[in-house]
């Protein structure tokens, strides 16, 4: 069973008097089929958590495992391959390549990775996210919300086992935000993905199987 696990993870930035602890003794596990929401105010360590979980940062202490493989023992290239094949990333900004149309954002994924979504599943996802009429548009022809939906679709297009999303609904209205969370929830329950969403948007709590709160680097389970 696919899982992502953080054991006793700690992250310290700076040295001496400027040193501060961004994450303190985090123990966390996300299993296939679960949607997990991590809420917390700005600066609470949410993005640090997400980047450590994806192997983009090394923890100061503790281990991160994906499918029981310790990330710390992998080479940079192996970690990159793991992200390409196992993780779908949705980030806050710079998500889309500005000179590619919406359709070409997906073609780019095809260029580096096979085994992406089938045509029918892809079309279904586009319809749910309301992207079908936007396939020929460039990012600068889209609103912030539309861009964010394209970024979500691109992350899902590679059919990853894990979806890590950093404030995915920040630019969306309530209706779209709920649609996105419902899609994540469907992916978790029907397609057996593990979905981890970090956000400060508490509207989304009802759509998550588990909710954690992260404040000043300390994580508590709320639900």
């Amino acid at each position, binding site marked *: 069973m696919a899982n992502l696990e953080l054991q006793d993870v700690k992250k310290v*930035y700076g040295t001496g008097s400027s040193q501060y602890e*961004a994450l303190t003794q985090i123990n966390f596990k996300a299993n296939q089929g679960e949607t997990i929401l991590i809420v917390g105010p700005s600066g609470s*360590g949410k*993005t*640090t958590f997400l*980047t450590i979980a*994806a192997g*983009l*940062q090394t923890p100061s202490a503790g281990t991160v495992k994906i499918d029981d493989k310790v990330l710390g023992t992998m080479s940079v*290239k192996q970690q*990159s*391959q*793991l*992200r*390409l*094949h196992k*993780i*779908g*990333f949705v*980030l806050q*900004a*710079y*998500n889309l*390549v*500005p*000179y*590619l149309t919406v359709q*070409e954002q997906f*073609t*780019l994924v095809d*260029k*580096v*990775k096979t085994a992406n979504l089938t045509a029918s599943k892809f079309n279904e996802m586009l319809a749910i996210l309301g992207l079908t009429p936007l396939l020929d548009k*460039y990012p600068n022809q889209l609103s912030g919300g539309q861009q964010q939906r394209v970024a979500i679709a691109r*992350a899902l297009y590679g059919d990853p086992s894990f979806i890590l999303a*950093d404030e995915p609904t920040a630019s969306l209205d309530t209706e779209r935000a709920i649609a996105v969370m419902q899609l994540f929830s469907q992916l978790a329950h029907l397609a057996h993905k593990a979905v981890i969403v970090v956000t400060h948007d508490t509207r989304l709590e009802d759509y998550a199987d588990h909710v954690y709160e992260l404040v000043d680097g300390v994580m508590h389970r709320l639900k």
Partner: protein
Amino acid sequence: MFLAIKEMKHEKLRYGLMIGMIFLVSYLVFILTGLSNGLSNLNRAAVDSWQAQSIVLNKDAQINLPQSVISNRDRQVLKNKGAQISLLSGLVQNQAGKKDSAQIVGIKTNQFIFKRLKVTSGTKELHSKQAIVASAFKTDGFKLGDTLKIANTQVKVKIVGFTNNATLNMVPVVYTTPKTVNLAKYDGQQTTTLVNGVAFASKKPTLGTLKDSKLYSAEQYINKMPGNRAQTLTFNFMIGFLMVIILIVIAIFLYILTMQKLPNFGVLKAQGLPTSYLVKNTLLQAALLAVSGVLIALGLVLITAAILPAIVPIKIQITMILLSGLAIIGMAMLGALIPVREIIKLDPYQIIGG
């Protein structure tokens, strides 16, 4: 490939300007290469047309044909070997009063220089007081049958033919017989024909023992032509400098463009897109820019060479131009390595932030 081409199609102005820059510098390099070749050719065209590989000159003449006189003794040793050259630099004037500088070269019709001459119009024969002259004279208004008076002498020669590639030391050649040259030089006062040098078709001809003369390679002789080395070095320096400019221009442009794209590249790397894919795209983009600029310059330089007046000494040698083009592309790729370094170093976490 995909990213590189899509970006260039989308950002036409930006990449068009960059191709324009490479085109301009390449065009300049090609024109300079052509001029360098052309001027060098004016120095050596006649020697090249003879396909001479070596030449015997007086060893005290500093490898300079006009300054060389083969001694009587060595002339006997070299008799019936190679092709004897008698030379007189001066002015020639036709019956209409038109004057031109000329290298009057006396050659024997039974020796290889004459045999290798290709006459473009007129007849290939050379008797006393006849001349086969460089085509440049035709451009200047001289015609077959014209009588040329060699300035400051009473000697007149009749043009019986024209030949291409006949310039020596930048001056068009008038081929005539050694006796005619002797007559012009000494006004009939000297019976022994003066020989300035003896050319050979092979690099190491069998010579007897020479006392006052020495064998030099054709390249040694050409390199020692007055002004030839300074001229070649000047052009090579300019071309080399332009190559460095190309390297810097490409490096700066690609560096700026890559720096602007780093946030996107950071996200793509975070999503697992291999660094090698981004590097390949950047290198391919540099190659496409350089090849496009070079090809446009190549086309335009061929057109330029075709429409420039004959007086401009430009000679486009495709192999030289292709080599220069390859060097420009090589420099562009070298320049692209600097932004590539930034992509390799890029830490996606720095873009995503914490």
